[in-house]
């Protein structure tokens, strides 16, 4: 009896070729968009690090501007800003009064790009007026 059952049991070691092909096709169809999504996310992680650094550098520059004498606030284009591999462009223009006015306001725009790329990663804008004194 035992021998008969053993002889009748189907031998199914491994998969059929059709099963494997179908599985590979299905996995392939699903894996493609997942791979693209993952690749984009990996790219965005690197980009976010750039944006964080660029924003910090822009804030650092504006903090320096706020501590600079009014007449010393000027346009500048600085490569490899503070040695971090980013380029910083500071644009200064008058929105009130002019160079010769006793009272005036400057608009300061700071833009940061990664060296070798034209894409602006961070941009901050503010105004600074002449003769404004702080309590500290």
């Amino acid at each position, binding site marked *: 009896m035992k021998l008969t059952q053993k002889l009748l049991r*189907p031998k199914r070691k491994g998969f059929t070729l059709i099963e494997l092909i179908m599985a590979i096709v299905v996995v392939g169809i699903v894996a493609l968009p997942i791979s693209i999504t993952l690749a984009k996310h990996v790219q965005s992680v690197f980009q976010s690090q750039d944006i964080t650094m660029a924003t910090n550098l822009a804030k650092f520059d504006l903090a320096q501007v706020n501590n600079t004498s009014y007449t010393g606030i000027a346009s500048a284009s600085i490569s490899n800003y503070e040695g971090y591999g980013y380029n910083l462009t500071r644009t200064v223009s008058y929105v*009130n009064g002019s160079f010769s006015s006793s009272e005036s306001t400057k608009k300061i725009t700071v833009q940061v790009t990664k060296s070798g790329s034209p894409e602006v990663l961070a941009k901050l804008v503010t105004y600074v*007026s002449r003769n404004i004194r702080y309590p500290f």
Partner: protein
Amino acid sequence: MIRKKKGLALIAAIMLIVFVTIAVLGISTFITQWFSQLNADQISAKCLYLAQAGIHDALYDVRNIYISTPNTYGYYSTGLVTVDSGETYRRGGTAADFLMVDTSEVSQSGTDLSGLYIQKATNSASPVVSIDRMVVTWSKSGQSRNLRSIRIAGSNRWTGNLSSPADANLPTNYTLTGTSIIPIDRLRFNASMNGLNSMSIQFVMTDGSSKTVTVYPASNSCQFTINSTGKVAGSSIYRTIKATYDLMPLTFNTTSRIVDIDEINTEITSP
């Protein structure tokens, strides 16, 4: 008795796909939230510097008008201003914020205290700067005195007979219109105020805000407060700076300054 076991590889593949998809979705959600937080941090930094722009622009206006136009301490406009594409600041605040009180020329003579001046710090219609009550508190050596009248811009706005602290509720609210300096001609008492040590006035405005100013002895002071909220289009993130500026009229060119500056967690939404 032969069992059919077709499609096992397919089931395994589908299970694999489900697990991988769940893992990828988890990673995607995490990275998306991280990116969103990063974006929020960047917008927040932008907003702070936009709020600063609003403060400095207002101070330019006040200072420039003060030195170039007679009979005014200067003023600035409220509302929304675009600094850069999609980047704005909005200025506003309570009525008390816009009330300038110049205490630099106050003097006491006989029964009267005089030489007090007030002005609205904005040329905009909003907010309405209107005085509801004036609570006058003083300390004096010798006999006590009572406040009898308050005269503003040539007319008695309140009469009565109150000891310190005198809560003078103006029968008709006094609304500051225009941008010219308005004299509080005198506060009159029932007898000589010789021996007056100090006096303060709490201006209670019709919007419920109030401002307390030490008016005697005279001090080189004329303060007002600017509130500026920075915002970026398409985002609900905001940053607000509140700065109190003292014109110090007697030494304007050399000592006028921001005397207090803080970030506050209130968005200026009007006008």
